[in-house]
């Protein structure tokens, strides 16, 4: 059966004066917020966002746990993680040197997806709960094996106050100071 054109009669809602009414309502809401603003801006260097556990931030390697399986380097979608070959003292036979591969990361490419942390069979990689760290040059963002094992400093923690955003029933997001040692 072919489709038929049906004219629906939509009742015209609202005239000019309904428009006036809704304009006045909008103005009243504006004046209400102008008198009592409920701001939620974060003053960033003085306050910083305290992320929840499980946040996918900077990645740190535990070298002694790593088994050199290279799963992290293979799964990395942006090819930020590579394996490097290092020669080191074999812990079982201290007289001998051995060759082993470890991951290093290039933060120019990293998209903080966390696949490497998820795929690691021995949990040798873990996330830090932030990623607001600056580097002085692009070259510094290629981490060496030594740097990859250190947790980077977060400068904002020294001068700022941690805050969290919570969902309020009437206002939506509201900013609160973190309670206790959280």
């Amino acid at each position: 059966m072919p489709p038929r054109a049906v004219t629906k009669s939509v009742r015209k809602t609202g005239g000019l004066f309904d428009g006036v009414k809704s304009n006045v309502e909008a103005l009243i809401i504006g004046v209400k917020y102008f008198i009592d603003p409920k701001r939620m801006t974060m003053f960033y260097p003085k306050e910083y966002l305290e992320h929840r556990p499980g946040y996918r931030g900077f990645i740190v390697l535990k070298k002694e746990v790593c088994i050199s399986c290279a799963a992290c380097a293979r799964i990395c979608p942006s090819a930020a993680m590579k394996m490097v070959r290092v020669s080191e003292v074999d812990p079982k036979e201290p007289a001998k040197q051995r060759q082993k591969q470890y991951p290093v990361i290039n933060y120019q490419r990293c998209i903080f997806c966390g696949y490497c942390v998820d795929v690691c069979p021995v949990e040798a990689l873990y996330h830090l709960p932030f990623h607001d760290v600056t580097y002085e040059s692009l070259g510094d963002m290629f981490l060496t094996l030594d740097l990859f094992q250190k947790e980077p400093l977060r400068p904002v923690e020294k001068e700022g106050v941690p805050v969290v955003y919570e969902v309020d029933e009437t206002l939506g997001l509201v900013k609160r100071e973190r309670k206790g040692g959280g």
Partner: protein
Amino acid sequence: MMVLETILYLIAYPPLWHVLIVGLLGAFFTAVVAIWFERKTAARVQRRIGPYWASPRLGGFLNLIADMIRYILQEVIIPRSVDRVPFVLAPVAAFVISIMPMAFVPLSPYEKFWPVPNMDYSLLLALAISTVPPLMSIIGGWASNNKFSIIGSIRESYVITAYELIFVISLLSAAATYTSLNLLTIVNAQSPIAWLLFLNPIAFLAAFLAVLMSTSAFPFEIPESEHEVVGGPYTEYSGILYALNMGGAYVRRFIYAVIMSLVFLGGWAPYVPPADGPLFAIIIPSLIVAIKAVILVLIMSFLRAVYGRYRLDQALDSAWRLVLPMALIGLGWGIVLGLIL
């Protein structure tokens, strides 16, 4: 004391005081304050902070000063395809002409402080001159030779046809009430508190909406809406020419507000200027007028926080079907008032 008196007389030399100090400096100051207020108010209503880090104690006011310096020092790029002379002249002419009505309004009841010898047709002259600057933005848009500017100019011309009649009719209601086009008569008749704002609020509201439309304040920011026609008539402008265009809207808003505060808010109304010396005869009354005008401009700026932008057809629809009848009702009520008073 003679020296101080002489300096005061020099400052209050009418063309200097009216056009340069109250007109140019006042409009300039008002533009900066209004832009700052607009940004802070919109931020306040939308639960943000607005400009802050440039000067936390002044609420980020220095941010605007820095913006101004940037506009002054920026390179002015004149594209090869534009019509050079009108392209450069249009914003300058618009800025200069929009201050000109200040030469024809009285800021003092005494004749020696007027820039023109006679105030008999001052309302008509001020209105007539205030209708010229929008044409300049049309010229600038046309000279830019760019599709966005031409669309913006066409929108501007649509809006001009809508608001100009409203503005003139609603201000002429005051002339109908006091049977005079002399602004001084109108101001004196409203003293001390019988302001036309209270006697004829419908005409005041119509004039207020017409000013919003004419200076593309927020609900009617149609000619230069960024999302639709990049910068409207000002797409090709850069540097100081763009600042003249953008600040020109705020300057015009201030000048319109001065005319409105003379006609509707009673000018220097609660204050009765004595005849001695320039300080009490002109400087204080004109400050009162300017403060009333600034309050009007700030109320107009507040609307940015609340409103989105009307479509062109919605704005024209409300202008012709709602605001023009309002202006006509205001004119009729003005005539009735004239018969009563």
